């Protein structure tokens, strides 16, 4: 090794490199077999869907179910008190706007959606396993999020009674429409330290549905009819 090479090696030892994060537990979670769990989840959703509508119509029953409910990569959790949250733009915490190609590269998958009748959106936001974009519905911005698999997740927290949760069907796929009251959105991506800094924000009306390993979410000042119309248009 020449003197220059030795100096370079010494420089390497003195570089400002952040401490190695422990990725073992995050990798463990991500490589754990999910198929069985997912199959059970699908079965559970199908069974729950049958009784859901009836049960939600009865106040006593409403309070005893839905403590925790999964639809694709999204969890809906009923809590007694909402976590500290703030009003924030729909895209808060999702990083800078990108082109669709950049967003897909960062997210690691290609969007199934959208096939819009109108003009296609131009601004996309991405995290590993998640792509979001904003579209306009009746002059209101609506956030459309697509999650692939279970690398990224979203938890909806709501207070029972304040927020209405209705089962819906999007082209034979089970879905949920959340409206009214204040409910919050929490992004969840195990092991990703930057996501721990994401703001917990109040959410607008939300339609959730899942197709295969993709979970879709529409959020904004949007009626149930508008959301379903859009979801059916987007879901082939």
């Amino acid at each position, binding site marked *: 090794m020449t003197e*220059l090479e030795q100096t370079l090696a010494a420089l390497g030892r003195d570089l*400002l490199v952040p401490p190695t994060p*422990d990725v073992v537990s995050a990798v463990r979670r991500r490589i754990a077999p999910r198929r069985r769990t997912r199959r059970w989840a699908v079965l559970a959703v199908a069974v729950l869907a049958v009784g859901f509508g009836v049960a939600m119509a009865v106040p006593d029953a409403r309070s005893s179910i839905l403590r925790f409910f999964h639809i694709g990569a999204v969890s809906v959790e009923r809590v007694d008190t909402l976590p500290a949250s703030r009003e924030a733009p729909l895209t808060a915490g999702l990083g800078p706007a990108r082109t669709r190609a950049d967003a897909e590269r960062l997210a690691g998958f290609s969007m199934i959606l959208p096939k819009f009748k109108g003009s296609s959106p131009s601004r996309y936001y991405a995290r590993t396993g998640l792509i979001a974009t904003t579209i306009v519905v009746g002059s209101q911005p609506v956030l459309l999020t697509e999650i692939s698999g279970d690398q990224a997740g979203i938890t909806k927290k709501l207070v029972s009674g304040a927020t209405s949760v209705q089962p819906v069907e999007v082209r034979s796929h089970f879905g949920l429409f959340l409206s009214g009251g204040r409910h919050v959105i929490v992004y969840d991506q195990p092991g990703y*330290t930057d996501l721990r800094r994401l703001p917990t924000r109040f959410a607008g009306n939300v339609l959730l549905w899942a197709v295969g390993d993709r979970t879709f979410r529409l959020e904004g000042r949007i009626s149930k009819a508008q959301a379903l119309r859009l979801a059916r248009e987007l879901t082939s």
Partner: protein
Amino acid sequence: MEGRPLDESDLVERARRGDQEAYAELVHAYQGIAFRTAFLLTGGAAEAEDAAQEGFVKAWRALGRFRAGAPFKPWLLRIVANEAHNRRRSTGRRTQLALRAAAAEPSGDAAPSPEASVLAAERREALLAAVNGLPEDQRSVVALRYFAGLSEEEVATALGIAEGTVKSRTSRALERLRETYD
């Protein structure tokens, strides 16, 4: 930086058969060099963590294609380096590497004079600035070869280039750096 686990081939073989515990041991053994490699290529802690984690997950999924008996580290680092390059491209920025504040002066047995310390620190800062200013292909080779401590063969595998290309890029880079250093 971690070394090669003593029973690496056994762990890899068990992981190839689906043993998650064996793979977790490999992750534990190599997360340091994976993160450092990703950091050297992206310059960002969040992107590096992201690339390392994603690299390990993709490597797990690709273990079926791993050639039995081959060294695991360069194969893994190639996947991590790919992830790091993708993230750097998507952020569109190239963060400059920097020295630790306490490392501005090289350590030694005899305490250098204040003037000598300042000159040495300036020289090191200038050399690092020159590394930061190298064309991307040369900078990656120098960073992995000297800052991550990889062999030429490992750098070649990690970057997906021929060993001869590593040699020629290293040679061109050192030539440029010598202008600053000499």
